[in-house]
């Protein structure tokens, strides 16, 4: 209980609240002071500062074929950073998926936990758990930056966003050619025994937990910005066998750093000007020794898989007075194609349901910057009976149909 220092009597609620607010305000002013603020204030520069932000999203989804609906707090993520010095910064993202974690699902996970070491004004190192620059969504997956309630399926199943691994990365931007950015990173490899048919390399990720460092992976990217354009190429290659070479040999697998490799390559292009925006991405993955993996683990792994999407959008408020109020009302249309069956080894069987096409349209309304209301209509067609793939990413879980439609309404925020 809070007691008055002079009288020893309990303080009333208003006083307690005042004291808490005063202390909180004082602490926040002290801790959130940046070096520039200090310089501006004409006081001794304080290098230490806390960065706090976050994002989240929730959605309602109606399955037309099943005539059922679900509503879910998809995720809430808290971002905390700390500037140790003007050269070393800490970043972390803690994610809670599906509101809670219990036997019925949900996930609590570190999405990032990394130290950034600035080498100079144009180059830095990352060390820890981080999201390699691959695809459009992996590094930048904030819900206010993409259309539709779900992230593009291609960037979930072909590029397994949000894909984070432990390692070290070197990032930079060219001074000679402004707009050109590059990255190269060495991270832990994949878990070959966890790879499964119809999910690309998604199930082989360690995501920072007890990862094998016997096998490693290398990833790199070239990213170029020019005016309204953004273009990127990136790739990944890594070993999938985290056991000793002798153990691997017994199983007729190739061990070592890059043994029994998995590879992924992608290119993407986007454009944004005068309210119009366009995105296009294509990605291709390969596991050349899928047959050997299947022989050992019987997981029906494909030796190749691919996906692509194109999206166009237009902001109806671009040329209105509402633009000054930071409002946006984007209409969008996206087409996606995935083939997670790809080249199937003779010892694997996957349903053609993993060959999928999506047509998604809807609107993205931003009443102000950082807050978004989304409505989208999804039409999906698969190459075979069953829509089980959507169980994790959507509301549909129909096993006896090849096509479905679902309507989604959601809210999201980022600060």
């Amino acid at each position: 209980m809070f007691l008055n220092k002079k009288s020893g009597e309990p303080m009333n609620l208003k006083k307690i609240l005042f004291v808490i607010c005063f202390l909180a305000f004082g602490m926040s002013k002290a801790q959130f002071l940046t070096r520039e603020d200090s310089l501006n204030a004409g006081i001794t520069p304080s290098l230490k500062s806390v960065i706090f932000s976050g994002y989240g999203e929730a959605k309602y989804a109606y399955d037309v074929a099943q005539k059922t609906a679900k509503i879910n707090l998809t995720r809430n993520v808290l971002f905390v950073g700390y500037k140790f010095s003007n050269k070393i910064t800490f970043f972390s993202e803690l994610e809670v998926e599906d509101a809670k974690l219990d036997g019925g699902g949900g996930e609590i996970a570190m999405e990032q936990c990394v130290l950034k070491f600035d080498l100079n004004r144009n180059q830095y190192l990352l060390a820890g758990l981080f999201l390699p620059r691959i695809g459009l969504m992996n590094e930048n997956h904030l819900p206010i930056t993409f259309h539709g309630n779900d992230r593009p399926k291609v960037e979930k199943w072909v590029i397994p966003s949000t894909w984070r691994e432990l390692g070290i990365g070197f990032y930079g931007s060219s001074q000679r050619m402004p707009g050109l950015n590059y990255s190269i990173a060495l991270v832990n490899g994949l878990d070959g025994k966890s790879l499964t048919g119809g999910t690309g390399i998604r199930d082989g990720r360690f995501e920072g937990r007890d990862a094998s460092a016997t096998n490693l992976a290398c990833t790199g990217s070239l990213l170029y910005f020019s005016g309204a354009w953004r273009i990127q190429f990136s790739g990944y290659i890594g070993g999938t066998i985290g056991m000793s070479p002798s153990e691997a040999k017994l199983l007729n697998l190739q061990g070592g750093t890059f043994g029994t490799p998995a590879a992924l390559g992608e290119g993407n292009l986007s454009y944004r000007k005068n309210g119009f925006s366009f995105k296009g991405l294509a990605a291709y993955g390969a596991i050349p020794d899928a047959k050997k993996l299947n022989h050992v683990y019987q997981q029906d792994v494909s030796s190749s898989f691919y996906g692509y999407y194109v999206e166009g959008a237009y902001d109806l408020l671009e040329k209105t007075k509402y633009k000054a109020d930071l409002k946006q009302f984007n209409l969008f249309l996206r087409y996606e194609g995935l083939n997670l069956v790809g080249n199937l080894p003779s010892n694997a069987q996957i349903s053609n349901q993993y060959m999928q096409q999506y047509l998604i349209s809807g609107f993205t309304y931003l009443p102000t910057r950082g807050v978004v209301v989304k409505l989208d209509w999804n039409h999906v067609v698969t190459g075979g009976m069953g829509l089980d793939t959507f169980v994790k990413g959507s509301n549909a879980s129909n096993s006896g149909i090849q096509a479905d439609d679902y309507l989604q309404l959601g809210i999201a925020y980022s600060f």
Partner: protein
Amino acid sequence: MKRRDFIKKSCVGCGLVLGSSALLSLLEGCVSVKVFNTSIQNHLIRIPLTSLSAEEKLKIIRTENLEYDILLVRESDQSFRALLMKCTHNENAVFTDAKGLVCSVHGSTFDLNGEVTNGPALKNLQRYMVSRDGQDLLIHLH
């Protein structure tokens, strides 16, 4: 011509047009911005006007004391603005492609006024006052 062939050829044609215009636009953007190294004195950065050529619209001002560069933008012959090259989203450094400023980490973009043109950044870039002192420009860090 079958409808499917027509759609395929139309898509390829659109792709080629889009790709060509993108390439041309990208090449246009290859303009390097020069860096001017200096220091801070009494919360002021002094830049001799002689260090700026008449056709130079942008200059990156770099000091040891500030951990981010400042972009000096020429508005007219006599008028300049100064923008701190620090993304207001997560404090990553932004770079300029001569048409605007971009944070390569999360994709926030800003125009040469420092205003957000694409999120996730919510706030505009920090601006500093710029004044003239004889043949020098002064950036006020207050």
